[in-house]
C-alpha cells in the first residue's frame, strides 16, 4: 500500500467499499430486471421447460386491449389518498417539531403503523370494516348509526376504505421523513424569526416549507409511484375483487391464475416504464420551479 499514491489508494478503497452493495444491487435488481424483460418476450406458463419466443406479441396484446389499463381508474383513488396522506404527514410533522407536551408519545403513535406487517394490517382492517365490526360499533357508540355503510360491499365505499387503510399504514413513513427534515433546520433561524415577531404560520410558510422542499419532492415521488403500484392492502383484504383490482394485482393474476408469465412480465415492464416516466416528469417540474438546489 505504501508505494501507492494517494489517489490510487483512494480508488482501491472505493472499489472495496462499493463491491458488496454493487454485487447485491446487480443480483437482486438488475439481473431480475433483465430476466423480466426476457420473459416478457415469451409465451410461458412459468414452469414448463418449453418456452416459445414470441417477440413483442405480449406488448401488442397489452396495448390492443383497453381492459388491461382500465384498472388504472382505481389508482386515482390512491392518488387522491396520497395527497391527503402527505398533507396529514406534513401537518403532524410541523406540529410535533414545535415544543409540545407528550411529543415523543405522539411521534411513536404516528409512526407505529408503519412498523406493522402489511398483511397483519389488512386483517385488522377487515375486522374494522366488517358489518358490526369496530368501525360500526364506534359509530353506534356515538349515536351515529345513520352513517353506517357496507364499507366493503358498497362499490362507492370499498376503494375509499382501501385508501383509508393505506393512508393509516404509510402516513407514518412520510411523517418521520418530514420530521427529520424539519428538525435538521438550524434552530438559530427560528430564534431569529421569533425576534422578528413571526408567528407559527409564518414560520411554516417562510422557513419550514422552503427548507424541506427536496424532501417534499421525494415524498411526493414515492407516494405517486406507490399509488400507481398499490398492491398489498387491496390484495390481502379483497383479493382484488369488487372493483379493488389494481394494475399490480392484475399482473399477479395474469401470472399465477391465468398462467401467462410472459404477458405478466410485459405488464410489469410497462408498469416500470410508467413509474419511471412519472418520476422524470415530477423531477423536471420541480427543477423548473425550484431553481438550483441539489
Amino acid at each position, binding site marked *: 500500500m505504501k508505494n501507492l499514491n494517494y489517489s490510487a489508494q483512494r480508488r482501491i478503497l472505493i472499489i472495496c467499499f462499493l463491491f458488496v452493495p454493487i454485487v447485491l444491487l446487480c443480483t437482486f435488481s438488475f439481473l431480475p430486471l433483465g430476466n423480466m424483460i426476457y420473459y416478457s418476450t415469451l409465451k410461458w*406458463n412459468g414452469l414448463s*421447460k418449453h418456452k416459445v419466443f414470441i417477440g413483442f406479441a405480449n406488448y401488442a396484446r397489452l396495448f390492443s386491449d383497453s381492459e388491461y389499463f382500465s384498472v388504472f381508474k382505481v389508482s386515482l383513488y390512491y392518488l387522491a389518498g396520497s395527497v391527503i396522506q402527505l398533507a396529514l404527514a406534513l401537518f403532524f410533522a410541523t406540529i410535533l417539531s414545535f415544543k409540545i407536551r407528550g411529543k415523543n408519545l405522539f411521534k411513536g403513535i404516528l409512526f407505529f403503523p408503519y412498523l406493522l406487517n402489511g398483511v397483519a394490517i389488512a386483517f385488522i382492517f377487515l375486522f374494522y370494516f*366488517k358489518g358490526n365490526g369496530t368501525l360500526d360499533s364506534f359509530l353506534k357508540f356515538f349515536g351515529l348509526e345513520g352513517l353506517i355503510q357496507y364499507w366493503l*360491499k358498497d362499490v362507492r365505499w370499498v376503494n375509499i376504505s382501501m385508501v383509508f387503510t393505506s393512508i393509516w399504514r404509510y402516513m407514518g413513513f412520510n411523517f418521520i421523513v418530514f420530521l427529520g427534515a424539519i428538525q435538521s433546520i438550524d434552530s438559530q433561524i427560528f430564534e431569529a424569526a421569533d425576534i422578528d415577531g413571526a408567528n407559527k404560520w409564518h414560520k411554516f410558510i417562510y422557513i419550514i416549507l422552503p427548507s424541506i422542499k427536496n424532501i417534499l419532492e421525494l415524498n411526493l415521488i414515492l407516494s405517486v409511484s406507490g399509488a400507481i403500484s398499490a398492491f398489498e392492502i387491496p390484495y390481502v383484504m379483497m383479493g382484488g*375483487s369488487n372493483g379493488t383490482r389494481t394494475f399490480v394485482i392484475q399482473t399477479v393474476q395474469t401470472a399465477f391464475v391465468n398462467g401467462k408469465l410472459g404477458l405478466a412480465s410485459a405488464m410489469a415492464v410497462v408498469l416500470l416504464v410508467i413509474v419511471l416516466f412519472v418520476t422524470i416528469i415530477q423531477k423536471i417540474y420541480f427543477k423548473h420551479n425550484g431553481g438550483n438546489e441539489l
Partner: protein
Amino acid sequence: MKIKRKFLAIITLLALVQTFSFSAANKEDAATDTKEITVITHRTDLVDNLFQEYVKEFNKKYPDIKVNFEAITDYEGEIKIRMNTEQYGDVLSIPKENFPVSDYPDFFIPLGSKTEMEAKYEFISDTEYNGNIYGISTVGNAQGVLYNKEVFKKAGITKMPSTPDEFLNALATIKEKTDAIPFYTNYAAGWTLGGQWEAQAPNLAGDPKWSNYTVPHEDTPWAEGKPYYVMAKLLWDMVSMDLIEDDPTTTDWEACKGMIAKGEIATMLLGSWSIIQMQQAAETLGIDPGVIGYMPFPYTNKDGNMYANVGSDYQLGINIHSKAKNSARLWVDWFTNESGFAQHESGIPALKGSKYPSALIAFQDLGVKFFQNEPSPADEVGLLDEIDAEAEVGRWSENYRMRIVEAAIGNRNETFQDIMTDLNTKWTKARKTLGVK
C-alpha cells in the same frame, strides 16, 4: 404508499430467475438411493397429527425409511416456483393450475404403464401422457351441496330439491321460516367460488365426454340452457333474490364451518372433501356431526337422472431429480393402498374395489349416478386449459363468479346476459386465435 410495493410482485416473478441458474443437470444413480424422503403436501392441517401416525404404521413395514414432511399453505403458488429447481422433495402433490400433462415427464417419474395401472386404480387417466402414468390420486371427490339437516327440517323441507328452481324455493322457505343464511357464498375466500363450482359443471351435463370432448369444441359454452349457464344463473338468482349472506365481502372460511354446524348457514356448494371438516367443526362445538348432510347438485338431466361427477383430488408424483426414488415409491404405494386416507377424508379411494364413504352412500340411495370424466383424446391433451388460459376466463378460478356476485348485488353496470355474452365472446375468440375446430 411506497415504491417498494411494486417490487413484491416483481420479486415473486423473479425468484424464478435465481433458482433457474442453479438447475444444472444432475445424473441419477439408483445404487445411491437414500433411505430418507421428503413429502411435500398442501395438508398443513395433517402433517403434525394424522401423517405422523401414518409414518409409524409405514415404519412397521419399512423400518429403515425416514419420512419427513413439508406442508405449504399456498401450495399451487409456491410449489411451482420451487419446481424450477431440483429441490421439490421426493414425493409431492402434482400442482393442477396451468400445468399441462405434457410437462409431467420433465418433472415426475413414470409410475407405470396405463394398462397396468388402470387395472388397479381409479382416476389414473388424469395423469396419463404417452401411455405412462405420472401420479396416483390421494382421494377422489364427488361433487354436491353441503346442507344442515336440522335447518331443512325446521323449514319443513322433506324432499331434496332436484332442479335449480326447487333449490331456490327451498332457500326462500328457509329464509322465511328460519334465521339461517340460506346459501353462504364464501365469496371473500375466493377459491370457494373457483374449482368448487367448476367441478360441479359435469354433474349438469351428465356426460363423461362433456368436459374434454364438448367444451373445447363449442363456441358458446355459456349459452342459455348449457351447464355453465345454468350454474351461473343459479348463482345470480341466489344473490339477486337475496338468499345469500348479508355482506359477501366479509365472509370467513374458517368461521363458516362452525356456522353450518350450528345451523346459522343452511347450504354451501363444496366438494365432498369438505364434509369431514364440517363434521369436525360440529364435534368441536359439541354438536352431533350427523347434522351435516350432503346432497347432489339440484339438477335433473333430460334423461330423468341426477348425476354426480367424481374426480381426483391432488395426485402424488415422484420428483424426477429425487435421490430416493425407490423409497419414495414405497411411500406412494403404501399411502394409496394401505393408509386409509381416502376413508378418513370421506372420499373415494383410488384403489379399485374399496368401499365408498357413508356420506356418498346416501347419494347412491337417492339413485344418483356417479361417473368420471373421460380423458381428452391423445392429440388434444391440455387443449381445454389452453383455450381457457388464452380466453382469460379462468374456469377453475373465482374471477367470473365473483363478477356475477358483484353484478347481482348491483355493484357493476352489467346484466347477467352481458356477462354470459362476454364469456362466450372470449371463448369464441380464443378458439379462433388457437385455430381449434
